[in-house]
């Protein structure tokens, strides 16, 4: 195909490592053609970091469900998808702004989480991880199919949100919706971290998850503790959903992307560190954004997954992991 002046022809790419090498080459060889200057990079890092904070918020729910309670949930991304549809539904039904919907969707998703826990997850607690994966893959497929039936395959979006707008600093444009979302995400992450470190219900959850058998023997009502945590994990996606829907749209297939993304952030962070999510979220977000403007927009998922696989290889317990 003699087409497209992007200079990709003739380069044989096979292994991931060669890919990275190729990316490096490209940056060095073609700076003029790519219109690259310092502003582009700063802009990319800022955009990416703000998105990264939201990614961290998405991963926060999974961090509670998996990191704290050790339940494998492959359907987490579809929880986010569901929360975005709930946001759309609440927003269009009551004609309120996307950012206001978490007041409605938060309890809904909490309830959803609790119901899912009792119906499906509880039976798998003492079984092999394969069972948990199988069950949650089933849940994922089910949610996706239901969303497709209820809302059809096309994308849904809410009207232009009040938090949308932009701020210009010199050559750099920052979008207010991203800034506000990032700030809310950071706040939410710290509140949840404090909850688990400083309050007794948080510590009780940690204690119960450390030793399921001991907790159930000691009379701690582990069922409700687990149900509550699972509910909390899924309710937090409502917050993420509200923020995302203020500037994005939702379609039934977006679950897998968000799911893998949050697992990637979790792997990068390591077990047990909640504020660490922010750092890895920002790393992933900026890597994504920079690769989009400097290399190729198609490469974004490539970069994310490569980070993921490399982290698993080289540092299986993550940046902040305590093993």
């Amino acid at each position, binding site marked *: 195909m003699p087409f497209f002046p992007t200079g990709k022809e003739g380069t044989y790419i096979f292994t991931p490592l060669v890919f990275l090498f190729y990316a490096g080459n490209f940056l060095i060889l073609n700076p003029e053609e790519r219109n690259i200057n310092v502003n582009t990079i700063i802009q990319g890092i800022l955009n990416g970091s703000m998105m990264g904070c939201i990614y961290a918020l998405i991963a926060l729910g999974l961090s509670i469900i998996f990191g704290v309670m050790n339940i494998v949930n492959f359907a987490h991304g579809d929880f986010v998808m569901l929360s975005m549809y709930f946001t759309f539904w609440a927003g269009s039904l009551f004609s309120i702004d996307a950012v206001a919907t978490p007041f409605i969707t938060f309890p809904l998703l909490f309830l959803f989480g609790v119901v899912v826990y009792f119906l499906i997850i509880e039976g798998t607690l003492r079984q092999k991880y394969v069972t948990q994966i*199988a069950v949650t893959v089933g849940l994922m497929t089910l949610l996706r199919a239901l969303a497709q039936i209820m809302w059809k395959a096309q994308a849904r979006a809410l009207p232009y949100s009040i938090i949308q707008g932009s701020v210009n600093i010199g050559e750099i444009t920052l979008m207010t919706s991203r800034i506000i979302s990032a700030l809310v995400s950071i706040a939410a992450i710290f509140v949840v971290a404090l909850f688990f470190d400083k309050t007794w219900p948080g510590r009780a959850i940690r204690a119960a998850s450390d030793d399921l058998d001991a907790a159930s023997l000691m009379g701690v009502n582990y069922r409700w503790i687990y149900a509550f945590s699972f509910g909390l994990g899924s309710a937090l996606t409502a917050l993420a959903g509200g923020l995302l829907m203020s500037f994005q749209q939702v379609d039934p297939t977006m679950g897998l992307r968000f799911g893998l993304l949050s697992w990637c952030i979790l792997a990068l962070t390591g077990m047990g560190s909640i504020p660490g999510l922010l750092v890895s979220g920002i790393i992933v977000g900026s890597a994504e954004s920079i690769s989009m403007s400097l290399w190729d927009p198609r490469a974004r998922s490539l970069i994310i997954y490569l980070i993921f696989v490399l982290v*698993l290889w080289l540092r299986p317990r993550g940046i902040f992991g305590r093993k």
Partner: protein
Amino acid sequence: MNTSVNNTWKSSRILIGILVLASLLLPLLFGKNQYNMILLTTIVLYSVLSTAWNIIGGMAGQLDLAAGAYLGLGAFTSGTLVIRYNITPWIGMILGGIVAVAFALLIGYPLFRFGVREVWYALSSSALVEVLRVAFLMWEDVGGPIERFIPYHDWSLYHLRFGTYTPFYYIMLFFLFFTLYINHRIRNRKLGYYLLSLGDNEDAAEVLGVDARTCKLKALVIYAFIVGATGAVYACLYGFIHPSFFSSPISLEVAILGIVGGMGITYGPLMASVILVSAREILRASLGGQMESFYLIIYAVVLIIIALFRPKGIGHMFQTAVSRLAEKRNRAVPATGGNRNGE
């Protein structure tokens, strides 16, 4: 060896013989109708994939979600060879398998070396499918967004292109027998026992002298080769190659079939494929227009129910039923001891 064992073995041999013969003769019955033939071919194709998955997923307990990656690699290898250099897919099949194996080694060695286990293995394998899809989308020389056609021939053994599906059915059927045989052989040899023990408990297996890394890598290589070779046929069956062959849904489906069929049971995935793939097709053909994505719901519910209540899958249910039947028969005749089903 007592009589009841002999009897069971004899009757299961007869049963296998009948099934093999029936599967060979099916095209005579349905060969006139191309629709039936492609449906049969699809069922057998999925059976091959999920039976191969049984080696790494079912026996070794490594929940591999990268079937699409190896399938795509096989398809692209043989597809590119036949399109560019007019090299027959028969060679492409072998080369496709080899490329898939090379990739599996490249990925699998570090994963197993660094002890990536369980969830993380599943996730990283599913990330690989996406990585490859994007990589081939960007690699304009071989992939790229535009479909590449494999030239059409009415009947060409050399190009593996036919105007009918019957040859593909037989090729896939051969693959299926081969895969089942490999499964069966592994299952009753050292490797099989080692893999099963790894799947059950890796620590316990290792202190019994099981070399976890090598065994898992062996399983991965066998699986990748079969899936890669299948990919070559897949490309010829559909007549084009496209990065969408690196498909997460197909990878998930293969794993689902393997789990529903019963982890580690040789014929489990086969049974699951026959049931679920035909169910999907019936739902698509009959309800497709009215109830979008309905078959996905059936899939999901079956998967959840099986995983929750019968984690050992359809194959295991079948096994227990057979052994119960045999017990009944043994009770009628004075029994001399237990039988050994499932071996």
